[in-house]
């Protein structure tokens, strides 16, 4: 077993390191800490933040890849079926959810089904042909006929419910204990230092969200050992597995695109606003030109060209994973190149305003270099704009992925993504009765992420945007 670092893995972990560094430096500033406290004081923002962190957790788990070669002795009974799937590049998430990946059916099956969705022809001993709904290989095969599926699911819900109760209780204990430890075990200090209700973060909402998420996940996890909770797709793959694997693609596109566009927008926007003159003219020309090309078409053109390059140089890529990963990286790059213009324009206008303020004039007359002035006096005053733009863009990018995949210029067809799921399932809408679960799962997972991001960005904007405060 050896680690495989795909390009996007490296980038996303770099981003995490940068974020941790940013959080550590922010903690020192009283002012920023108060702002974040203010943001999280809204129960909705708190819940949204927790949902976002859970999505991020899944994306990170799915961003640790390694080459997996199964030992031939370990799995004895299922080795013939399982070992085929176990070769190749796996992620940490695949290891946590092994049964989801390997328990594939022959074709479509509905959520919680015990038999295939469509009937197939079969022959009996006498040779006559009849139609049967074949039983699934894995879904619901523990049922003996005494219980219905519904009863069985009801009974089995108890386990994840108990688990999540215990889980939350443990977290709560740690939380209490940590607060207690901070006062070094002194009871009187502890009770006297209890914050007033209005200074307290909305822990009730936080615990409720966490409980729901843990319960939902453990419920899916536990029941997926017995059923295909969200059904299977055309080639019999578990839809829940696909939806979970798609989290990485969605979150990465949202996060890494900002990593590409941020330096461009910051450097160009600030230079245009600060140096004015021909620098401003050139940069304005640059973003007006880029802006005037319709976004989808520019992305489509770039991706088409990339396909030409890839097909001309197929020797560049070691494996399909690497090719798919480079394509994702390229898509992120293109999205970043097309989306910096909005933020750049904002930053330029704000820099123009700030550089007229007295303290910047004073700094200039003291002989500070332009670089120092930008670093010390201008950039910190633009950070709220940057943050608002970043959280606002995130949800738009997640939604854009689905549309781009539909247009055919999205991620590689072999990459798990909500866009690809929708694209594949769309063709099945004409079926009678409909195959709805793939679509439903993709939209539900996407909706949760985007809704959380939108609610959170709303709160960030309300707190940080000075114009909204009055």
């Amino acid at each position, binding site marked *: 077993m050896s680690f495989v670092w795909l390009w996007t893995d490296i980038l996303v972990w770099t981003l995490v390191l940068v974020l941790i560094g940013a959080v550590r430096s922010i903690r020192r500033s009283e002012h920023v800490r108060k702002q974040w406290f203010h943001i999280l004081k809204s129960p909705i923002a708190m819940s949204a933040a927790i949902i976002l962190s859970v999505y991020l957790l899944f994306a990170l788990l799915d961003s640790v890849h390694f080459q997996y070669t199964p030992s031939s002795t370990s799995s004895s009974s299922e080795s013939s079926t399982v070992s085929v799937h176990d070769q190749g590049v796996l992620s940490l998430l695949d290891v946590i959810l092994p049964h989801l990946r390997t328990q594939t059916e022959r074709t479509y099956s509905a959520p919680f089904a015990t038999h295939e969705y469509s009937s197939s022809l079969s022959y009996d001993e006498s040779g006559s042909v009849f139609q049967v709904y074949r039983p699934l290989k894995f879904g619901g095969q523990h049922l003996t006929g005494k219980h219905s599926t519904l009863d069985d699911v009801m009974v089995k819900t108890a386990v994840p419910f108990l688990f999540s109760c215990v889980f939350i209780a443990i977290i709560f204990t740690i939380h209490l204990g940590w607060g207690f430890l901070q006062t070094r075990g002194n009871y009187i200090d502890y009770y006297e230092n209890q914050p007033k209700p209005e200074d307290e973060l909305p822990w009730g909402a936080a615990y409720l969200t966490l409980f729901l998420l843990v319960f939902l996940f453990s419920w899916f996890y536990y029941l997926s050992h017995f059923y295909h909770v969200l059904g299977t797709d055309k080639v019999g793959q578990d839809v829940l597995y696909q939806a979970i694997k798609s989290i990485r693609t969605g979150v990465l596109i949202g996060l890494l695109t900002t990593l590409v566009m941020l330096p461009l927008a910051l450097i160009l926007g600030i230079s245009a606003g600060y140096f004015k003159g021909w620098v401003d003219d050139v940069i304005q020309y640059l973003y007006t030109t880029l802006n*005037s*090309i*319709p976004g*989808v078409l520019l992305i489509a053109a770039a991706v088409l060209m990339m396909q030409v*390059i890839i097909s001309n140089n197929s020797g560049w890529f070691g494996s399909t994973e690497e090719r798919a990963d480079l394509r994702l990286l390229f898509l992120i790059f293109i999205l970043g190149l097309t989306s910096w213009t909005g933020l750049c324009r904002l930053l330029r206008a704000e820099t123009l305003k700030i550089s007229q303020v007295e303290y910047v004039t004073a700094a200039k007359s003291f002989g500070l270099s332009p670089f120092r002035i930008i670093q010390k006096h201008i950039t910190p005053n633009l950070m709220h704009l940057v943050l608002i733009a970043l959280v606002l863009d995130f949800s738009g990018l997640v939604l854009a992925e689905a*549309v781009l995949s539909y247009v055919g210029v999205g991620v590689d067809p072999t990459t798990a993504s909500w866009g690809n799921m929708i694209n594949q399932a769309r063709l099945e809408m004409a079926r009678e009765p409909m195959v709805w679960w793939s679509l439903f799962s993709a939209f539900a997972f996407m909706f949760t992420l985007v809704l959380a991001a939108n609610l959170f960005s709303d709160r960030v904007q309300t707190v940080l945007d000075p114009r909204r405060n009055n």
Partner: protein
Amino acid sequence: MFAYILKRLLFAVPILIGVNVITFALFFMVNTPDDMARAQLGAKQTTPEMIQSWKVENGYDNPLFFNGDASGFGKIQETLFVQESLKLFVFDFGQSDSGRQISADIQERMGPSLAIALPTFVIGLVTNIALALLIVLFRGSRLDTITMMVAVAIMSISGLFYIIAGQVLFSKVWHWVPISGYTEGWEGVKFLILPILIGIFAGIGAGMRWYRSIFLEEMSKDYVRTAKAKGLSDIKVLFGHVLHNGMLPILTGVVVVIPTLFMGSLIMESFFGIPGLGSYTLDAINAQDFGIVKAMVFLGSVLYIIGLILTDISYTFFDPRVKLS
């Protein structure tokens, strides 16, 4: 006025040249005429002679940026970049891979695109502004909070969901309208209703929030306080003052969109089988027909720039402080 428009049009020229450079870089430097020839002639053994004759036949036999063989001004002029760009500027887009004239195709397909985009835009705009005004009347109340939550939820659902759900409900389950298709004239209305309604609904969340925030910002200004102090009712302040003054920020966002309505919508048109420019582009992308994609990129940029100029002009009608100079 005329001089101003002329000046703005001249400003647009360098931008269009820039657009040309970008599209040229994308389409000719990555996908060279040699690649195009190979793709067109098929994957069979293509000799350099065959490629050369294809290039001559289709007018791609000049070098990319600099022609050393030509003399004088021709060194620059007789290159692929200048030739291709000049053709674009007179809206001569050449032939598509299937051998049809792209310019004629575009003219033919603008109608169906507009038939969807224009009603969606106009009705959507009116609905959004009306809803925003209504919600501003109830600002700060529980109704306001709930409506804004609903608006965020509407924004958070993928547009693909609205289309698919709409098609399933209204066409498959209830059989109110046909699933897809298009005919000219009033007959075609039954095909257009669903995409227009879906387009409007999908835009309500974002639109309502945007106009609401514009109106709320206006509401906090001094003239509103004065108007209220005079004893004007909320409704009179809203329709008499706030709506008029809010027109300016609304115009910034709206006028620029109007020319690009011609481009149609990629997804909407392909889902509903409307033979407009959106589905034209989408088919071209899927068939890797670079000629069409290039033409649409250029057309889109031209329309956007026209939108920018129209925005500037429209300011003069609504804000007498803006003087064209």
